[in-house]
């Protein structure tokens, strides 16, 4: 980890001591705003994936036997499975034996306050530009609006704040590793129940090797007193990131969870296969928001994260509600379908998505709304923005079971194209086994018109400002679903992601 690139110090300056190679690396790093990596000693599991790797990870984390058994079962399943190829994405074959599956910061953990945080890690948070409100909270400013930050640095949760206050409300907010030890019954009850171990190749891989992640439990009748947020970040070269999140909202509970990602500049492709499981009981509501900005690869399509994510929510109770909101701007390849299984009567599933692809990025993303409960309703709003030579696919399934009377779904898929070398694709699947269902699907594809661009430019915006404005307008119906803290950040991210895509 010697190549610490500090982009603050004008990497393009002609300092004579910089050789050409370093200069090029620095310039590459500067291209990607969050493209840096900090020097923190990392402890690796040996390269490759065998039963021993799984045992190593489990042992490293001091897990109980039942957890190890669960992992091993998944590993054996995974060995029998084939990598899926149905998505509209292409990438070189991944050599799963040529990757690391575990890395942990060696200076670590168990902090009473953030003052005790490793200064290197603190510096990483600073560079990440954690929103002001949260910085105040991190700095312990009194009266700051509370946003709990469970920071996942590489694979192990380094710091968890506000655990005590949440505890007072009865909310459990822990890393999943801690939850496995402290609340084994809760974890056992739900882990793998929303996304089964054999669900799909990447989810099964995650079951075997998941490094860490977040556990949230909101008991009956409790409204979680703050927004919960987690920052994920890949920091070690060639290390897969396998996060695991489980959120349970009991009867009448409410929780809003924010997840934001950035990743440093790397040439090597990095595999990211997360699993998120949500459970909402009677009258419970979970709002899950994501801003995803993993490294997308450079403008030539070299490098970037492979983001194969399985996210699913179970609306188990009557009148329960799960709402997914995502702003996806990063990753070289995205394969992600946050879904809702609507078992409860009159339960509600929502999916709001903005997916931006530029250069050679590929995104195949959408949702599945599985209506089993009578009177269940779902809304899907997908906004795809394609630029450069990228490909952006919406893939969505709306399924209505035979006993689900009075189901309603509304789907709107809009695609916006910048330039004429990119692609936008919409692949809706609708399976209705109950004749009473009311399903609406609307789709549009448009280009940013020359007239719109000229109009905005004539009023004073330069080309990139004009694109940012038009694109943010296009995505507004989704952006307004984000928690306030994320809206401005998300708007900026859209603009940054499309820089250089016009003219």
């Amino acid at each position, binding site marked *: 980890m010697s190549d610490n690139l500090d982009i603050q110090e004008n990497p393009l300056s002609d300092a004579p001591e910089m050789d050409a190679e370093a200069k090029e690396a620095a310039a590459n790093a500067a291209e990607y705003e969050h493209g840096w990596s900090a020097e923190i000693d990392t402890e690796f599991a040996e390269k490759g994936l065998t039963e021993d790797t799984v045992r190593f990870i489990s042992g490293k984390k001091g897990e109980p036997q039942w957890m190890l058994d669960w992992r091993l079962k998944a590993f054996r399943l995974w060995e029998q499975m084939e990598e899926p190829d149905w998505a509209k994405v292409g990438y070189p074959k991944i050599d799963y034996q040529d990757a690391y599956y575990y890395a942990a910061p060696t200076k670590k953990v168990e902090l009473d306050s953030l003052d005790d945080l490793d200064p290197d890690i603190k510096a990483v948070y600073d560079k990440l530009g954690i929103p002001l409100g949260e910085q105040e909270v991190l700095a312990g400013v009194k009266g700051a609006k509370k946003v709990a930050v469970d920071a996942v640095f590489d694979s192990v949760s380094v710091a968890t704040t506000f655990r005590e206050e949440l505890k007072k409300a009865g909310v459990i907010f822990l890393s999943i590793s801690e939850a496995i030890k402290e609340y084994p019954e809760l974890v056992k009850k739900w882990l793998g129940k929303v996304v089964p171990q054999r669900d799909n190749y990447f989810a099964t891989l995650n079951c075997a090797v998941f490094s860490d992640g977040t556990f949230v439990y909101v008991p009956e009748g409790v409204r979680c007193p703050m927004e919960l947020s987690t920052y994920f970040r890949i920091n070690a070269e060639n290390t897969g990131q396998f996060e695991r999140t489980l959120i349970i909202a009991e009867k009448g509970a409410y929780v809003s969870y924010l997840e934001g990602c950035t990743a440093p500049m790397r040439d090597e492709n990095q595999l990211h296969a997360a699993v998120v499981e949500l459970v909402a009981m009677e009258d419970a509501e979970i709002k899950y928001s994501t801003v995803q900005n993993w490294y997308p690869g450079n403008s030539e399509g070299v490098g970037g994260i492979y983001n194969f994510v399985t996210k699913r929510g179970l609306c188990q109770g009557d009148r329960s509600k799960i709402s997914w909101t995502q702003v996806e701007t990063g990753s070289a390849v995205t394969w992600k379908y946050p879904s809702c299984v609507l078992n409860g009567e009159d339960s509600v599933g929502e999916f709001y998505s903005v997916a931006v692809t530029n250069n050679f990025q590929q995104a195949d993303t959408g949702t599945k709304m599985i209506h089993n409960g009578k009177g269940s309703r779902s809304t899907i709003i997908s906004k795809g923005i394609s630029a450069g030579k990228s490909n952006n696919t919406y893939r969505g399934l709306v399924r209505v079971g035979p006993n689900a009377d009075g189901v309603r779904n509304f789907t709107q898929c809009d695609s916006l194209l910048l330039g004429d070398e990119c692609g936008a694709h919409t692949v809706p699947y609708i399976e209705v086994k109950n004749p009473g269902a009311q399903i609406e699907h609307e789709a549009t594809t448009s280009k940013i018109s*020359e007239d719109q661009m000229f109009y905005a*430019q*004539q*009023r004073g*915006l330069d*080309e990139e400002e004009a694109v940012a404005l038009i694109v943010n*307008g296009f995505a*507004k119906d989704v952006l307004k679903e984000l928690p306030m803290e994320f809206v401005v950040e998300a708007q900026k991210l859209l603009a940054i992601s499309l820089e250089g895509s016009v003219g």
Partner: protein
Amino acid sequence: MLKIEDLHAETAGKAILKGLSLEIRSGEVHAIMGPNGAGKSTLANVLGGKPGYEVTGGSVEFLGEDLLELDPHERAAAGLFLGFQYPVEVPGVSNVQFLREALNAQRKVRDEEPLSGGEFLKLAKEKAGLLGMDMDMLKRHVNVGFSGGEKKRAEMVQMGILAPSLAVLDETDSGLDIDALRVVGEGINAIMRPQGGAADKGVLLITHYQRLLDVVKPDLVSVLADGRIIETGGPELALRLENEGYDAVMAENLGAAA
């Protein structure tokens, strides 16, 4: 403030402007009239710098600068405002957001401090009031669902907020009924020739009809035909066009040239 000399321009390979010369001095309102296809909208688009229009000859000087060298947004920051014949819809973007970003982008180019949200709203409210628009309308998305008249009124509110030196208004009167025409015309007067006159502002008013000129009284009227200015006169020229039609004026002019 604007000096156009022997301007030639084409679009889609077709020559539209064929040696157009025109000068607007500070404080002047100069009306351009002419038949369809004469090049009126092309003139506006070329001045604004719209892609797809190629200048093949001549020069345009604006406040001492070579206008044709500037990007469209730089022309805006330099003080050029184009009132669009067909204002464009920008879904999802409110007028307030659009104009605040535009104004602050212009101010940035001019090395001026950006306006805060509060300062901007105060300005917007004042300028909208001149055109009889309320803030609810400014909170709506840019031109989305606006009637033809509302769009033109919104254009004038934009002009009021951006406070240009030169307004090039391309058939701002089209699609307006008599009452709306009066409101818009008085808006132009209020913004571009406020009480006591504005020595530092000019207007290039492209129109088909005398009725706008009844409200916004021009200092000069020029007739544009086949890519050239064929005649320039005082306000009485517009009245003559109204009574006799373009053909008569053009025939006379072409006859004189022959």
